[in-house]
């Protein structure tokens, strides 16, 4: 790891519009190192788009997304993202992790060992030589996490990583996310699952119709939401959480 940190990440009046419709509307916030951040909101609130703006997969229509580091290569290499549906290459689980390490310019001699270590971290070492695409949904998501783990990112974005998983696989994924947190990686996760937000989050950013409505520590958010919108969301969602 080089000396300077890429965090904090600053969003200034960020707007993202598709065909004239604003999906993210004038969001300003700062994401610093440390406590894990949960982006909470209903389907269609703009969570995924906000994550993609932060991760650099989308360019804002207006406003600014700025990291504490000007070299875009360095910024790209020190963050990772895990999507709701992981995309695996048609090669072995191990080779998928090695591929990510190669892109991150890890020396060839080191890749194999580091990839195996990352697979061990998510409990997939025994499946290292299995083709990645025939793994189960839960295993693929853990493989996506191993691929991120191998990169030792400073920030890990997770876009509803357990939305298509069963409870058992969800638990395993959550355990790994906690391990990232414990290892000092900043977690930024989008979810609409309140239970998961409570289990994994330190603070909540509540999003509704593309706007940031509220940002509070997780305990306070659930016990005493500051806004009626957040209160209504918690009340409406709780029975299914």
């Amino acid at each position, binding site marked *: 790891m080089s000396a300077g940190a890429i965090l904090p990440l600053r969003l200034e009046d960020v707007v993202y519009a598709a065909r004239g419709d604003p999906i993210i509307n004038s969001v300003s916030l700062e994401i610093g190192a440390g406590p894990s951040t949960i982006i909470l909101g209903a389907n269609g609130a703009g969570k995924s788009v906000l994550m993609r703006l932060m991760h650099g997969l989308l360019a804002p229509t207006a406003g600014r997304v700025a990291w504490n580091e000007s070299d875009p290569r360095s910024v*790209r290499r020190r963050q990772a993202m895990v999507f709701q549906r992981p995309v695996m290459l*048609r*090669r072995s689980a191990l080779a998928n992790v090695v591929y*990510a390490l190669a892109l*991150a310019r890890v020396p060839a001699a080191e890749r194999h060992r580091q990839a195996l270590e990352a697979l061990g971290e998510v409990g997939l070492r025994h499946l290292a030589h299995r083709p990645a695409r*025939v793994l189960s949904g839960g295993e693929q998501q853990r493989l996506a996490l191993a691929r991120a783990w191998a990169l030792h990112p400073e920030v890990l974005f997770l876009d509803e990583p357990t939305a298509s998983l069963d409870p058992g696989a969800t638990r395993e994924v959550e355990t790994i996310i906690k391990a990232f947190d414990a290892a000092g990686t900043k977690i930024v996760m989008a979810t609409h699952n309140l239970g998961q937000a409570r289990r994994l989050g330190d603070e909540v950013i509540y999003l509704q119709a593309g706007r940031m409505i509220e940002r509070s520590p997780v305990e306070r958010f659930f016990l005493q939401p500051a806004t009626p919108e957040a209160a209504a969301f918690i009340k409406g969602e709780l029975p299914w959480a």
Partner: protein
Amino acid sequence: MLAVIEEGLRRVFALDFELWNIVFLSLEVSLSAVLIASLLGLPLGAMIAVGRFPGRQAVIVVLNALMGLPPVVVGLLVYLLLSRAGPLGPLGLLFTPTAMVIAQTVLILPIIAALSRQALEDAWREYREQLRSLGAEGLRAALTLVWDARFALVTTVLAGLGRASAEVGAVMIVGGNIDGVTRVMTTAIALETSKGDLPLALGLGFVLLTIVLALNTAAQLVKEAAMRRYG
């Protein structure tokens, strides 16, 4: 008619030297052309699938149109390039198997590039965000895509091979159908039919069909086995 077929088959199985010489040259020319056109065409198709650049739509339209290039026109253009007065005349390639490989490569390059572009564009929709997130852009992303879609691209390459092994016009013009040097299956069939040696023409036609069928069967089996294994 039956006697003609019988004589044709007899010459195939009698390992008629002339016949098999023609068969091997055909395979050599067409497979070389497919190899070169694939090495150039697959990355080209992938770059167009992955890239976003001005004039992209125009490039796609032109490429699709070039799929329908008449072989005789390609033959004529390559002939002009390679003829003694042409820009590549000094190389002395006209009426050699190399000239035939060049002509067939030109003929099927657009087919392989256009069909792979189409196949890879669908795959790219699935991969785009993940690869960008990992830091794969441009040529690197394109090559990753080609390798990952390798089983789907088998069909693309076969389309090119089918076109190359079936065409007469281009190899006839730049090869000259010289006996023992540039005579391939299709030009031989055309010639022998007009000369009236129907058994040889028919025997060659039989071999041509069998080879094309065998290659397609093999490719399909490999593709299916690989798909099952890699998902």
